[in-house]
């Protein structure tokens, strides 16, 4: 601690506050104490965060040079390169950490060690979007095997929908969360609300668990994922009033559950509306039988009930419709 006092003279308060926040920081406290104000640090060395001795020198240099050397501006390539400064084993380690959330271990402090990366969130979201679309397609294929009357089609537009949904969720929800936490904590950043990138990173890695369990998309995956988020957010909201903390955490879990449910119903609907995908005007019925488009269910069919149900599903494909 004596060395920290000499070097981190302008960050002493931040250091003690960080130590108070994270009692298990003894193993890796050097880099955390001397991290510059924004957690978006220029990577001065390679990414080996377990070598404490190397880190002391690197972070000493960082602290000393902080006054003279500016961070690269956001218009330079080096700025973005600092977010991809991870090795293979680090990414795998972070993924493992998200699969097994533990109450005491804060994902941001313990796994990210305050060095968020954008590789994980970006490619996990991309993988999840494609896996969702592919599995939805597979579901349709298997349903067609069982019931040959279903019209199979690749449904490629679902890829677009999946991509947009997942990326919006993984970026806009952390943005809202970060904004809310900053607002609650005021401008005292040293008391530890996470930076925007750390929040994005946590959300990105928490979505990983949906990839292998995409067939189920079930309660287990949702529970694991939401648990990771809650355990990470708990130290930050702990100081707030109980009501605000409870509301925040429940909103986070609720949004996550909505994502899971929405994906389940949109991508894995067993009977898609493809059966009547050509709207009634394109059917083979002679024009005299065609009724006004608002009431096609009065057309005499052997199974009037299902035509009506299918027509509803054609109009509103995104709403969940449970099969009777």
């Amino acid at each position: 601690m004596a060395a920290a006092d000499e070097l981190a003279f302008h960050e002493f308060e931040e250091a003690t506050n960080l130590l108070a926040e994270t009692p298990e920081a003894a193993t890796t406290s050097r880099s955390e104490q001397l991290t510059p104000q924004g957690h978006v640090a220029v990577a001065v060395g390679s990414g080996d965060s377990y070598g404490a001795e190397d880190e002391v020198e690197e972070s000493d240099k960082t602290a000393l040079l902080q006054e003279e050397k500016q961070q690269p501006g956001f218009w330079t390539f080096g700025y973005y390169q600092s977010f991809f400064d991870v090795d293979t084993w680090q990414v795998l380690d972070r993924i493992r950490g998200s699969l097994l959330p533990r109450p005491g271990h804060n994902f941001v402090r313990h796994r990210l060690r305050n060095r968020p990366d954008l590789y994980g969130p970006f490619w996990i979201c991309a993988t999840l979007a494609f896996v969702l679309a592919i599995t939805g397609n597979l579901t349709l294929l298997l349903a067609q095997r069982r019931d040959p009357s279903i019209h199979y089609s690749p449904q490629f537009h679902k890829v677009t929908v999946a991509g947009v949904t997942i990326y919006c969720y993984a970026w806009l929800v952390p943005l809202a969360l970060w904004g809310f936490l900053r607002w609650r904590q005021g401008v005292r950043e040293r008391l530890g609300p996470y930076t925007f990138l750390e929040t994005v990173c946590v959300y990105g890695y928490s979505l990983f668990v949906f990839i292998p369990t995409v067939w189920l998309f079930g309660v287990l995956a949702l529970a694991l994922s939401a648990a990771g988020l809650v355990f990470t957010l708990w130290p930050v909201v702990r100081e707030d009033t109980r009501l605000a903390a409870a509301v925040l955490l429940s909103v986070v879990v609720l949004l996550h559950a909505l994502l899971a449910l929405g994906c389940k119903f949109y991508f894995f609907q067993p009977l898609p509306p493809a059966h009547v995908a050509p709207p009634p005007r394109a059917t083979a019925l002679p024009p005299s039988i065609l009724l006004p488009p608002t009431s096609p269910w009065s057309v005499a069919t052997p199974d009037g009930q299902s035509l009506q149900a299918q027509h509803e599903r054609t109009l509103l494909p995104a709403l969940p419709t449970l099969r009777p």
Partner: protein
Amino acid sequence: MRSRIREFDSSTLNESVQNTIMRDLKAVGKKFMHVLYPRKSNTLLRDWDLWGPLILCVTLALMLQRGSVDSEKDGGPQFAEVFVIVWFGAVTITLNSKLLGGNISFFQSLCVLGYCILPLTVAMLVCRLVLLAEPGPINFMVRLFVVIVMFAWSIIASTAFLADSQPPNRKALAVYPVFLFYFVISWMILTFTP
């Protein structure tokens, strides 16, 4: 060596159009051969061009079109979707590998990724021919086998060219997006129904 010097002459301005086109076509053909028989060479990297990727992408996108009218809403990928996936996918992978610290230039990487779509374009051709026969499980098995083989070929070819430019402890991070890219294209090919 002499022909190289001649290339930089202004005499290429005066040559006939046929000469120009044949020269470019020969360059593209030579790179196709390099992709089909991948060895560790840097021909693709040294003399990169984007004609080959463009030809392959347009061919693939045209072949993935279905002829029927009722493919507006839940049909296969439209031409623009295939085009966007191929080009933006390649750009994203290139940016990713540069951000991870790879020392390959932007267009070299685009060139390699584009040329390595050749096996999958061949697979698309074969699938379209196989689909002319009657549908059935054997039909599907043949197509699945062809697509898997060509997918593996694409991955091997592209990693043969790209792997050396990555830092050693991040190779897997740079190769995984390439795997995802070719997997998505293979999926589009496999689920194509006329």
